[in-house]
Structures are given as C-alpha cells and as structure tokens.
C-alpha cells in the first residue's frame, strides 16, 4: 500500500500544480487487468536484459501466461463485482470506462492472447536446425536474411524471446482500446497496440522478405491511417472543445450552448463534427479491415509469422470493434442518421468485397485474410444496428470469431514443407488423406467461417443478422446472406481440396505439434462447437454486457 501510495504521490507531485489542477484519482483495482499486463511486459523487458539466454524462453512463457491469466482473473473479478452492470463507471478521471462491453471484450482479448501465447511459444514445428528447437520467429531479426550473422545466430540457438513482452504490450494497448473513453486515450491505445504489432510482423523465421515487407506495409499504412484518425480527433476537439466521449456526445445532442459566441464559428460547427467523425471512423475501420480500408489485410496476414497473424486477426478485430462500438454508441448516437447510411454502405461493400475477392485466392493465409474482411462486414452489420441487441450480438460474434480464427491459423502453422509453412492452396491437396484429423479440424473451422449451423459461426451470424433485421436492416441481411453464399464457395473449395483431391507426391507434411499448439487448436474447436450448440450462456453474458457507460 505504501509503495503504491508513494508512487502515486510522486506522480501527482510531478504532474500537478498544487491547487490549480486536482490530483487525478486512479482506480488501480479497476484498471488491474491492463496494469497487470503492462507491468508484466515491463518485467519481460527486464528479463531480456538480465536473465541468461537459456532461461529466457521459459521465464517469458511463464510470465506471459501467468500475467494474462491473472489479468483474466481480474476481469472476472471485476465482472463478478458488478462492474459490468450496476457498478459500471468511468475510471481514471473518465479516461477509461469500466463497463460491460469493456470487460467482455477485455476478457475475450485476454483469452485470445493467452492462446496466442501458446502458438507463439510453439517450438516443435520447425525442423530442428543444428539440433536447436526453433519457433516461428527469426533467431536474430536484425541480421540480414540468409547472411552470416543469421546463420551464426541460428547455430547458437538464439531465440527472439522479446516477442513475449512485445505481445504483452500489444495486449495492454488492446485492453485499453475498447475501454477508452476519450479520444486521446483512444489514439494512444491505438498506437500502443499497433506499434508492437508492426514489430511482430517483421519477425518471421522463414520467408523473411515477405515478413519485412508486411511489416513495412502495415507500418506505413497504419501510421497513415492513424494520422487521419488523429486529424479527426483534432476536428472533433475543435467541434466540441473536449475529447471525452460524454462531452462530445453532449455537445452533439444539445447543440452549441454555453459557449463563447465568438467561437461559434468552430464550436458546434457541423462540418467539423461530420468530417472529424468520419475520419475517426475511418481510422477504426482501417483497423477492423473494412472495405475500402482493407488493402493491408491480405498482405500483412500473408507475410507476418502465422502465430502473429492469428493473434492479430483475432485480437485486433476484437479491440477495434470494441472501440468502434463505443464510438458509435456513446459518441455518435446523436448523429445516427448521418452515419448509419454511410456505415450501411461500408458494411455492404465489406461483406461483398471480402467474399468476392476471396474466391480467386490461392494462398491459404490470404484467403483467411479476405475471409476476415467479409466477417468484418457481417460484424459491421450488427454493429450499426443501433440497439442493445446490436451490441450484444457483436460481442458474441467477436468472441466466437476470434477463437475460430486463432484455431484456423494454428492449423496453418502445422502444414509445412521444406520452405516452412506450405500456405499455397495447391499444396493442401489431399491433406485429408495424409492427416484426416487435422483436415477435419480445419474443416470445422472453415464451416464455422461459412456459418454452417451447429458451429459458433452460425450462432454469431444469426445474432448479428437478427439485430440488423430488427432495426430495419432487412436488406443488409439479404446482402449478408448473399455474400455468405459467395463466401461459402471458397471455404468449400478448401474442403474439396483437402478431402477430395489426390495428395501430391511432394506434398507438405503435417508437423506434430507440442501440447501448446494442440491446446490452442483444441480450445478453438471446443469454442466453435460449444458456442454453436449451446450458445445461450454466452449470449447471456454478451447480453448483460451490452450496456455502455457514458
């Protein structure tokens, strides 16, 4: 207690001018999930600095798992304490919301991250070079690919164990992102989880050129989009004179009052609001991969190390949609009639675009990337329903989708040939003969993506479409259904390839994973089936979590 208090006092003394600015009140307990994760990340950095190389892997793994589990426990504790419903409130001087959606999404992100850590830590898949186990990451990312330094690092059995703290930083940012209750926090959280991801993308052990290219693309486009987001924030600030969600919402709904008439030119200027809102939306739509801001998705998904892709595809989507929901429901409900038609258009474009583009893909990771775009469209359809059902359905969909995605990418890591993962679809031909179990598992994931009943994908899709239909989006549902049909085509194509094609003689082998990846896949399958067959409990959870604090 004393330590915390002293740190607190240090901080307040440093930041505040006594008497003028009140000391900020920080509810540490309610921010525990984020703090635990970020703290663990810092500790992870220290481990990298001080522990000998050989013990880093296990310490990092242990630290990450414990931290994420503890954070998850903290989320559960908060939820059990009623912070998800009756005691929901704004913490940290209104910067961070502790409410149902935030806790639900944080819980989801933490679980997803926990599983992602397992896939990050998998070291049995890559054929052991020089007798050293290798994970998915380059032993010496700074070394030139194929160069002497890299070979030496490989020989020495180096491992980039920094990925764990980096991952934890990203998770920390993601935890804040959907809970951010002002635009500044939103922006900072965005950068906090984006920057580590850029780094992670560049770290692939195999095909490093692609990996680096993906990182540079992701980075440049991400930075570009966050500049737009920031400009949007600036305009909104200009419009409302504040960046807190509640403040902006109030200005929107009440119009410009109690304001210096001299400033009426900017204050409450609808053009500022509309342009600013649109730019902030754009920044978030970029993160969820909605058309027309989706271009980075396939390239990054393909180039990044597959465990990272899985993590990104699942967790980023959860965090970004959480933030999007909060923005739409807390900040912009007053201008619903402005953004809804536009978002309808985006949703339709995204659903159809993702599905149509995926048809002709030949790389499994790109295919899944386009599929994730189509799914973003489905989620958008629910997100813009502007009803409590809309929120809870999106929450449910996100939870369901993220586990399927993680599982699917985990499966992708297992199918390998001499050049690393064999992601070209032609190499997957006949996989069902070589490894029926793996193919069956992947088929389950694909069917879930396709929204076949009795899988979580169906329950999620039904939930969001139901929400959309109930709020008058009947045609959105029809478009969604049509694009589902188109999407089904390419999911099925993969199944055909796996089961009904003759295996090629020089086809890939299926690596036998350790318990880590096996767990990840098993959890994915279990979640897919449980959420598909008995979704009520989770729907309840999402339903209870469907109220934003304002």
């Amino acid at each position: 207690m004393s330590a915390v208090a002293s740190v607190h006092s240090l901080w307040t003394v440093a930041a505040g001018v006594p008497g003028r600015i009140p000391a900020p009140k920080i509810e540490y307990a309610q921010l525990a999930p984020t703090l635990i994760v970020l703290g663990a990340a810092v500790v992870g950095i220290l481990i990298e600095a001080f522990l000998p190389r050989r013990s880093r892997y296990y310490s990092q793994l242990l630290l990450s798992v414990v931290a994420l589990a503890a954070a998850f426990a903290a989320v559960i504790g908060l939820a059990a304490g009623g912070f998800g419903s009756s005691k929901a409130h704004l913490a940290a001087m209104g910067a961070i919301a502790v409410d149902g959606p935030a806790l639900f999404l944080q819980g989801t992100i933490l679980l997803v991250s926990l599983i992602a850590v397992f896939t990050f830590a998998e070291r049995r898949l890559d054929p052991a070079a020089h007798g050293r186990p290798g994970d998915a990451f380059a032993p010496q990312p700074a070394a030139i690919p194929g160069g002497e330094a890299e070979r030496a690092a490989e020989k020495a059995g180096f491992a980039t164990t920094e990925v764990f703290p980096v991952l934890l930083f990203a998770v920390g940012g993601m935890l804040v992102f959907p809970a951010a209750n002002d635009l500044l926090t939103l922006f900072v959280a965005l950068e906090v989880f984006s920057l580590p991801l850029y780094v992670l993308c560049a770290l692939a052990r195999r095909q490093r050129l692609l990996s680096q290219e993906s990182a540079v693309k992701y980075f440049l486009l991400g930075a570009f989009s966050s500049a737009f987001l920031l400009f949007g924030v600036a305009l909104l600030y200009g419009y409302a004179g504040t960046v807190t969600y509640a403040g902006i919402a109030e200005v929107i709904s009440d119009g410009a009052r109690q304001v210096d008439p001299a400033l009426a030119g900017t204050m409450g200027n609808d053009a500022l609001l509309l342009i600013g809102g649109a730019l902030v939306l754009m920044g978030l739509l970029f993160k969820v991969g909605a058309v027309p801001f989706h271009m980075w998705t396939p390239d990054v998904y393909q180039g990044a190390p597959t465990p990272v892709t899985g993590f990104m595809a699942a967790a980023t989507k959860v965090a970004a949609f959480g933030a999007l929901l909060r923005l739409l429901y807390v900040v912009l409900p007053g201008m619903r009639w402005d953004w809804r038609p536009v978002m309808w258009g985006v949703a339709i474009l995204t659903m159809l675009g993702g599905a149509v583009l995926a048809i002709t893909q030949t790389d499994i990771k790109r295919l899944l990337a386009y599929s994730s775009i189509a799914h973003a469209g489905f989620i958008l359809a629910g997100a813009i329903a502007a009803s409590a059902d809309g929120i809870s359905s999106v929450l449910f969909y996100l939870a369901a989708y993220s586990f399927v995605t993680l599982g699917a990418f985990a499966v992708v890591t297992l199918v390998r040939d001499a050049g690393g993962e064999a992601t070209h679809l032609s190499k997957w031909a006949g996989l069902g003969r070589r490894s029926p179990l793996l193919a069956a598992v992947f088929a389950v994931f694909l069917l879930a993506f396709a929204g076949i009943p009795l899988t979580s994908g169906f329950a999620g899709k039904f939930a969001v479409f139901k929400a959309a239909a109930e709020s008058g989006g009947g045609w959105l549902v029809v478009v969604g259904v049509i694009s589902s049909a188109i999407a089904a085509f390419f999911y099925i194509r993969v199944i055909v390839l796996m089961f009904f094609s003759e295996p090629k003689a020089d086809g890939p082998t299926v690596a036998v994973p350790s318990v880590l990846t096996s767990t990840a896949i098993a959890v994915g399958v279990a979640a897919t089936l449980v959420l598909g067959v008995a979704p009520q409990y989770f729907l309840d959870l999402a339903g209870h979590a469907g109220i934003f604090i304002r």
Partner: protein
Amino acid sequence: MENLIALLVAAPLVGAALLLCGGTRLDRAGHWIGSLLAVASFAVGVVLFAGMLGRDAGHRALHQHLFSWIPVGGFRADVAFQLDQLSMTFVLLITGVGSLIHIYSIGYMEHDARRRRFFGYLNLFLAAMLLLVLADNYVLLYVGWEGVGLASYLLIGFWQHKPSAATAAKKAFLVNRVGDMGLSIAIMLMFTTFGTFAFGPVLAATGQTSEGKLTAIGLMLLLAACGKSAQVPLQSWLGDAMEGPTPVSALIHAATMVTAGVYLITRSGALFNAAPDAQTAVVAVGAVTLLFGAIVGCAKDDIKKALAGSTMSQIGYMVLAAGLGPVGYAFAIMHLVTHGFFKAGLFLGAGSVMHGMNDEVDMRRYGGLRKYMPVTFVTFGLGYLAIIGFPGLSGFFSKDKIIEAAFARGGTEGWILGGTALLGAAITAFYMTRVMLMTFFGEERWRNAPTPSPDRPSAEPAAETRGEYAPPHPHESPKVMTVPMIVLAVGSVFAGGLFSIGDAFVGWLEPVTSFSHGHSPVSAGVVTAATMVVLVIGVGLAWLMYGRRPVPATAPRGSLLTRAARRDLLQDDFNHVVLVRGGEHLTRTLVYLDHSLVDGAVNGTAAAMGGLSGRLRRLQTGFVRSYAVQMLGGAAVLVAATLLMRGV
C-alpha cells in the same frame, strides 16, 4: 358364396407368386402348378356360375368387400368385387380359355429353359384380368387394367434377348399407357363429378349431371378402350405384340385382354347411353378399326400378324356394337365370347403350325401342310369357318347380329355402319381364306425356300441360332397341344348357336346391360342374305388369287395399298417420324438446354463472380502507395457521404 369370388383371383395370383419367386426348385413342376391353379380358378368360376344360375335374374349379382384400400378425404377406393352376369361371362371365358392355353403351353414351351417363368406370367395375367372384370369400382378396375398391361408386356417380351421382342413389349406398354391416361382422367372426372367412382353409384347418377361431363368421361373411357383393345388410333402395338410366344397371342392378344376395352364400354353402358356424342365416337372408332384391321390382315404374310389384323378388325365389330347402346351390348359381348373361342383356336393352330415348321411364321414358306398336320388343319379350318361367319358356326350368329344392329342405328349413319360392317365381313372372308390357302393348300413351298426371311428373323428363339436354311420337317403337335385346340374348335362351332337358342345370351346379360331391339330398316333375313353374298365374294376372290395361282415364296412388290397395308397403313411410319423422331429431337434439345441454359445460368453466375473477383483483385497491386491512394479515396468518399447525408 360371395366369399369365393376372391378365390378366383387368388388362385392364379398365388400361382404367379409361387412361380416367380420360387426359384429353380420349381422348374420341374412349374407348368403343372400354373396350369392347375388356372384350372382351379376355372372350377371356382363354374361353381359360382352354377350358383348364379340357381338364383333368379334380379338377384344374381354377388358382392364381396375385402378391405378399404385408399381412404383419403372424400376419396374412397376399396378392394371390393362385384360378380354379375357380365363379369361371370368374362370369368368363364378367361379362366376357361386361359386353362386351355396353359395346358397347350405345356407342350408349346417344352423346350424353353424359362418355362416356369412363362407360366408365372400367365398366372399373373389371369389374376390381373380377373381383377379387371371383377372390380366393383373404376380404380380397382384400373389396377387390373394396368396389371394385364404388365403381363402383356412381360409376355410379349418373353424372349427378351431378341431386340424386336423387347421393343414390341415396350411399345405395347407405352401405347397402352396412353390409353390408361384416358382411364385415369375419366376416373378423376368421375370423382369430381360424382364424388365416387364405384360402378353402382356412378352409373346410377348419370342422369343427374350435364351431358358435357358425361361425354368427356365417355371419350376418356373410349381412349382407354382404344389403347387396350388396339383400336384406331392406338392400334399400332398389336401387330408387334405377335413377337410374344404364340399361346400369349392366343390368350392375351386375341381372346381376353384385348377385349377389355369392350368390357369397359359395356360396363359403363349407362354412362354412354346418356352421352350420345361419346357413343357416336365409339361407333366411329369401331367402324374404322374393323376396316383398318381387315385391310392390314389382307397384306400380312406373317401368319400371326395376319391373325392380329383380324383380331383388331373383330374387336372393331365389338366396339361398334358396344357403341350402339343397349341394342348392341349383348351382341358385342356375345361376339367377344365366340371370338374368344375361334380366335384362340386359330392362334393355337398357327402356333401348332409354327411348332412343326421350325418356328417359321412366313406363310409364303408354308403350303400344303394339311397332309402333315391333320388335327391342326381341321381345328384351324373350323375356326376359319367360324370367323368368316359360315352359317351355323359361332361367328355367324354373333357377327350377323352386329351387322343387323348396325343397320338398326337408323338413317344415313345406319347405312354407313351397316355397309362398313358388311364390307368388313367380305374382307374377313378374303383374308382368312388367304391364310387358310397359303398355309394348308397349294404347293409345299417350304421345301426349298430361297433365302432366309428377308425382313426380320422369325418370332421364335430357334431363329437366333439358325444359320443355313434347313427345310423343316412338318409334323403334328403333341396331344397336350392338340387337345386344347380341339376343345376350342368345338367351342367355335357350337357356342354361337348355343347362345342364340331363345336369345339365351341376351337374356342372361339383360339385367346388366339392358337390351332393346333395334328397328332395322332392312329385315334380318336380308341382312343374313347379304352377309352370305359378301362371304362368297370374299372367299371366291381369295381363291382366285391364292388358290388357283401359285403363291410366290417371296412377296411381290404389290400395289400401293398392299405396301401401305403391309406397313400397317403407314401408321407406324407416322408414329416413327412424328413421335419417335420428334421425341428424340425434343429430348436431345432439352438435355442440351438443361446443360447450357438452366445449369449454364448458375454456372455463369459463378463464373461471373470469379471474373469479378479476378478483376477486383488487380486493385491489390502490392504497392503501398496505391493502397494509400485507395485509402485516401475511401476516406474522401466516407467524408463526402457523411456530409451528403446531412445535406451540408
């Protein structure tokens, strides 16, 4: 007593089941079982007949209700039998002639490896035919109706390894199906009109509905009759049906099944009586067919086909009679029965000839056979005399009455019909004499037949293995074959006379069919005389052409009419060109369209999606800067759209 009715049907049905499912174990005894059960059915028939005679005319009909068959809503089809005088007549004919032919077949099919199956089919036929005549409603009748069609199909195609037999069987079934369509539409009409289709209620209610509906029903029934009884325009199958073994031709395609149409019209008499237009149609069909069949019969060199043409023609007489209403029903049935005797006899005779002639069917390769097969000659000869209406024999009585009744129609119609019937009688005499002369008289052309049969291999399986021409050794058939022929010959001679004593037959049927004497513009005597005259002309003409002059062993080219008649008056050609060819084109076109249009539409959509996808993909150039441009464009659109929504 009425419980015996089911037994009539059950006996042959059991036989069929036994023989068809019994397997090779029954090969040795199969024909005996089959024949025994046919005879048993006949015996039951006789018992029932005796019982029926024992009751007075008003109470002779028996009913047996077995079970409710298809009860759905107002639709109630039952399995129930009705045995009245009309049915009884048929029962006796079917089981009687049927039994004889079973016995005949024992000898005829002796060398066939699949004899057991043959008897199974025959039993099946008997059962179906009995069901047809015993049913008390149209739906159950329909079962028998199609059942006999099935048996006919199986038996025509009995020698399935011959493509011609298989094709003929198929054709018979198909043409019959067209007729069956008529029957089912008739039943539907009855159901919607009367709410029922049992004979009793329907026929009793004919007075309560419009004539138009009745005419429609009547025409549909006529269509059914045309199919089953090989009447124009659905006659084309009967000639081909001769591909079946000869006993089959005798039983099914001469004596019993083909007469089912006459039964149907007679049974529905009350309905037709109330629909004169339909009756006119019936009469017209009958008249046309009796000429058609007769003309075809004149041109055929295949003995069985000549007889088939004759059958067609004779049934034309019956249909004509049935179309005349109460005046003719009884005579139609009477001619049906006598025809059953003599035509069955003729066919069995033909079979016997073929049996002794290495299964040759071309009459131009017969000749002078009377010496070699005397019994066949005599029985065949008696049948011949009966069919041409030689005074005193069966055919004379029945056919004469029909001609009389036709004249009695009155007016121009009466003259036309009567004239047609007379003309038919002349042609009948001609072609039957021709058959007789070519087969049993003249030189023995079979001794050095020049070439194998030109147009097609003969009907019997031996033909398949036949290579070089070896002259046959004509011989008389065994007892088991000749005895049934003798019995039938006796029937052909005496049945007509017996029936006519005191109008016994008419009186017997009257409670069912009712009867009225027509008022003929010409007296009965004149008609009889005229019949005699045309008979002599026909026989004389035939004798001039085939008795005096030698018959060439290969058919001469013949006149245009002859050639047309050989080809069934081009009706088959018409069918072939219009229905078969046209149908082939239609199906081929549809198959093509199904693939290119219906399937193509869907596949096209899929391909279009793929194309769209391939095109959109190109936006993904791989260049960061192009992505950035698109993002910027997207942002601009987003902003613009948002502004537009507000109308700023």
